[in-house]
């Protein structure tokens, strides 16, 4: 008989972490578990279980697991404690014979170099030029807006050095798109 799902749909696919580690010998220490959500990235993301601690029944679906996390092909320096997110039924156990193939990082993530500057908005640029002219400031080079990127330690992106060619440019208009299908019917 085919299974018919009713109710709201979900993006999760798998079991909660307790359902996995509770059924494994020795709490599944040393086994590889993956989140289905992170399979959207080309690089592999998975966790290796180091230590399991059951929790009192106040939170029946949760478990405290210390793991060695690899996210998008990059292993974390320190072990991570999964507790609050352990109830999510999105974990999948990787069979032992597939572990090596699953964890293999074929193409490591590349650091993208972000552009330092981009064009001003056209009207604002015109205003700036007029203001400078009124002040009598000589305009020697083209005016460029300095981009204020957000900074974070675990980002695979950095701002280009002086004179370096950036890999990610930013334009004040729509810019280069990956899906030209959406702009097919736009009239210029």
């Amino acid at each position, binding site marked *: 008989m085919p299974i018919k799902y009713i*109710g*709201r*749909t979900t993006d999760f696919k798998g079991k909660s972490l307790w359902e996995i580690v509770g059924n494994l010998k020795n709490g599944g220490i040393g086994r590889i578990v993956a989140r289905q959500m992170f399979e959207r990235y080309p690089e592999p993301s998975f966790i290796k279980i180091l230590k399991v601690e059951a929790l009192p029944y106040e939170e029946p679906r949760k478990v405290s697991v210390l793991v060695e996390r690899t996210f998008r092909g990059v292993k974390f320096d320190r072990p991570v404690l999964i507790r609050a997110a352990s109830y999510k039924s999105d974990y999948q156990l990787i069979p032992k014979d597939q572990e090596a193939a699953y964890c293999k990082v074929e193409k490591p993530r590349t650091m993208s170099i972000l552009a330092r500057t*981009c064009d*001003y*908005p056209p009207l*604002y640029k015109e205003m700036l030029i007029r203001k400078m002219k009124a002040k009598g400031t000589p305009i020697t080079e083209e005016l460029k*807006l*300095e*981009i*204020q*990127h*957000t900074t974070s330690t675990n980002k695979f992106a950095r701002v280009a050095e002086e004179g370096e060619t950036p890999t990610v440019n*930013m334009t*004040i208009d*729509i*810019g280069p*798109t*990956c*899906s030209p*299908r*959406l702009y097919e019917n736009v009239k210029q």
Partner: protein
Amino acid sequence: MLRNTLLAGSSAANGSFGILSGLPNTVCVQCVRWKRKPLWLGTAKSKLFRIPERPKIPKDETIELLRLHNNYRTLVRSIRHHITEAVIGSQARVDTELRAKQEEEDFVRCVALNNEWNESKAKARDERLAKAREVRREEILRKIIAQEQLAAKQLENIEKTVKRVKEEAITFITEKNIDQAIEDALNNPVDHNWALDLEGTIHRGKYVQPQANEGQRQKRMQPGV
């Protein structure tokens, strides 16, 4: 409320207003204090089993929208930062070097003025203290003289007393003449039992001391009897 609502409905249906219809106020007033149902009331019965359909956005559109939104936020942040910097740059700024120089000059001026004040104050203080010292010296001198005079007077008094006592010492009862004094006292009994009248006449006692008493006293005063 229901009646009012119905009345309002009927008057509206007739095309006339409540006041003009001749009836009491037929306007239905309903207060709307909250726009929506409070969350703690839970899902409505009619919507309990409703399953909203999830929006289906194509993959490329999702990616494109994410890119556009990210770009928009970054650019707006950059422009805002640029404008903020421009505004801060256009504001009047304090020339720190000039300010420091002015402060230094002001300090030097203040120090000179302070020294001047200190000098004048020191001069006045010296004068005042010298005067006070003089007054104090005179006062002490006066007190010393008074003390000396007092001491001399006391010495004189003492000498006088000593002289008087020395003169009187001849009549003192000592070990040598105590027997004689006792003898004299016994031989010359003094009777204080007398009275004075207004003329100053002394009236001796009416009765002489009884013999028996006298004899007893003498007996008692002679040791070994």
